[in-house]
């Protein structure tokens, strides 16, 4: 595994950076929020991203994807992360998309992935409940046999892009106790299904989420994604891949937040000098820089580990997410502090990065969760 970018990856980075600077500046975040935009991202930009091949980047070309890897996707996500672009990569490409891709179910994959790659369909993974925190096995939503199919009853929360999704991959329990790894099944439920109630949630970082209530939603046997009663492995793999993608996005965000902060240190004058000349701030900035470089390495390694099917992948995912969580929060907390009073205003952008840092930290497991996971995987 070589931790360098290939020429192709550098080209992808440049293309994405140019696109972002022209079409997705940080100002979009404020615009979408202030307009209370009904979609929460730009369908037109999503379509353009699909045409550029980014949406289908990691899907096989038989589905209309580019057949590339996470090393390439991480590059795209990092660039988009710099300006907090809210397009639904996490929900559609990484959570729902990977679940369908890895399930080994040709029919379901064929039904949805080509449309996903074209930018014509949004997927959401409904998997978190009120008491689950970061435990993917904490599922009380039940799916009971009903004729040849199933009836699903439960309440999912914080469903990313839930209110714009065309279909949901729902995790429900078909057997076992409320926190058992055994007994989970994934179901594909199209929007508008009878008994499906979707309510928009408003998040501190402005990203799209929904409450998804399933009140006796009936699905056929063909709605099962992957092996029935044995959904933990598929869910875990999909979430690990999504975590790598999120860490890549976080890397871009923290790099930009830091760049804004360093620029401020150079330009802001007090007491007749640039505040960047104060040693205390120099050292704190150096500390953030060190953390960023470590995250960069961890994200590169995790992305390449996905592509290499590396048995060390779960540890590398935890490493990337834990470090990215701590570093993004540090960079943005320091950023707001160093901007001083204006850092606390809504008018300045640094606050958006701080909010995104926190939200990202609390998604797919915070640093403490991942340290505990690393310890378990390491035998202690």
């Amino acid at each position: 595994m070589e931790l360098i970018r290939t020429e192709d990856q550098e080209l992808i980075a440049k293309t994405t950076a140019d696109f972002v600077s022209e079409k997705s500046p940080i100002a979009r975040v404020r615009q979408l929020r202030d307009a209370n935009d009904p979609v929460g991202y730009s369908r037109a930009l999503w379509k353009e991203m699909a045409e550029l091949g980014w949406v289908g980047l990691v899907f096989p070309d038989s589905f209309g994807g580019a057949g590339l890897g996470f090393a390439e996707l991480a590059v795209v996500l990092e660039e988009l992360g710099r300006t907090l672009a809210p397009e639904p990569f996490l929900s559609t490409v990484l959570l729902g998309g990977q679940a369908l891709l890895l399930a080994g179910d040709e029919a379901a994959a064929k039904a949805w992935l080509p449309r996903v790659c074209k930018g014509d369909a949004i997927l959401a993974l409904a998997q978190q409940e009120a008491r689950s925190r970061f435990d993917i096995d904490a599922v009380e939503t039940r799916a009971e046999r009903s004729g040849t199919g199933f009836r699903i009853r439960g309440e999912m929360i914080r469903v990313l892009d839930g209110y714009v999704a065309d279909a949901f991959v729902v995790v429900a329990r078909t057997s076992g106790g409320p926190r058992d790894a055994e007994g989970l099944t994934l179901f594909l439920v199209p929007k508008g299904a009878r008994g499906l109630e979707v309510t928009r949630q408003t998040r501190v970082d402005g990203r799209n989420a929904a409450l998804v209530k399933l009140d006796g939603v009936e699905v056929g046997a063909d709605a099962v994604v992957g092996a029935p009663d044995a959904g933990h492995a598929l869910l875990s793999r999909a979430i690990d891949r999504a975590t790598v993608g999120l860490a890549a996005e976080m890397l871009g965000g923290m790099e930009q937040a830091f760049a804004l902060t360093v620029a401020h240190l150079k330009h802001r004058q007090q007491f007749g000098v640039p505040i960047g000349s104060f040693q205390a701030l120099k050292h704190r900035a150096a500390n953030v820089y060190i953390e960023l470089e470590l995250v960069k390495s961890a994200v590169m390694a995790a992305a390449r580990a996905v592509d290499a099917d590396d048995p060390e992948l779960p540890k590398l995912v935890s490493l990337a997410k834990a470090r990215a969580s701590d570093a993004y929060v540090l960079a943005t907390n320091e950023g707001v502090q160093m901007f001083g009073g204006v850092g606390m205003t809504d008018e300045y952008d640094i606050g958006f990065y701080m909010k995104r840092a926190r939200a990202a930290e609390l998604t797919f497991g915070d640093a403490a969760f991942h340290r505990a996971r690393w310890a378990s995987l390491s035998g202690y």
Partner: protein
Amino acid sequence: MSELERFRSDVRDWLEKNAPAELRGRPGSELEGVWGGRRWKWENAAQKLWLERCAERGYTAPSWPREYGGGGLSREEAKVLAEELRRLKLPPPVIGFGLTMIGPTLLAFGDEEQKREHLPRISRGEIRWCQGYSEPGAGSDLAGLQTRAADAGDHYVVNGTKVWTSYADKADWIFALVRTDPAAKKQEGITFLLIDMETPGVSVRPIKLISGSSPFCETHFTDVRVPKKNVVHKVNAGWTVAKALLGHERTMVAEAFGSGGGAGGKRGTLGERAKFHLGSENGRLADGVLRDQLAQLEMDTHAFALTLQRARDAAKAGHQPGPESSIFKVYGTEVNMRRQELLVRIAGPQGLGWEGPGFDPEELATTRDWLRSRGNSIEGGTSEVQRNVIAKRVLGLPD
């Protein structure tokens, strides 16, 4: 067969015939091995034979020109030689600051006479060198050094004190930074001078650390007469020479900490040691706080190792060294210090021993290692200075 492959095959043949059997499988380290010098005591005949044979072939200093005792090898050939030595797990025939520091410095800045006098003796392990930079009044502010070299016609008279001179009590020669022009701006009045430790007026005192004995010494110069031909490069241009060497030293220190990971020792990995000392429930460390700290340490160590790898991969691909290399010394040392703290905490009350009964050797070593590690953030450029460097050179923050 390419030329390089033929070279490899020749090296292999030569090693088969000439590398003593008892040295195979004992690769040694940067700090353990044959330092050589006038007072060197051989541990066994094989060591002596190995050095003599390698020196004759130029393998002690493979990349140095042949006329100075080196092997005259190209970079690729030197790499091949290193690989073949590693393959048989052979120790380097001789180690020390002669090979790693003053040798390359003389090749870059020395005159012909100096190269001919000093380099062959380094390559044959006959002369051992130490470094005289820091002074009691000049640590982080090295340019503020005061050891005076007064012009006395055809020689200098040197007076002053150097401190933290590693192995000065065992070395034959010292390369020192001395002040030749007290009136000039401080960096512009410094000269790089070579001094024979047997010159009258040179005296050495070992320095004991909080961790016990150490290789560090104080070196005192009292009216030491040094011929002017021992000036390297130019008078008052010593700072240029020193800067080149300092950068090199910092990389070496950083890479030494970079390998991090794997506690080794009889009780195995950090996790295993922790479980042994603190107990576990269902395979899980009973102390949740320590479990979290342990995971944090291992993860940080791994992230650091990945960053070192990233820099190496970039270098291999021919890229210019990136800004990430500026974090190596500061981060590598601080991770190591956290590791040593954690090891002592894991040992618990058994970590408070100094020597004697009731403490096993590994516990005593843990305590000593922790004490010694407190110096890591100070030596080779303090963490504070490193952060100043990052702020200035990488982030471009104003003075």
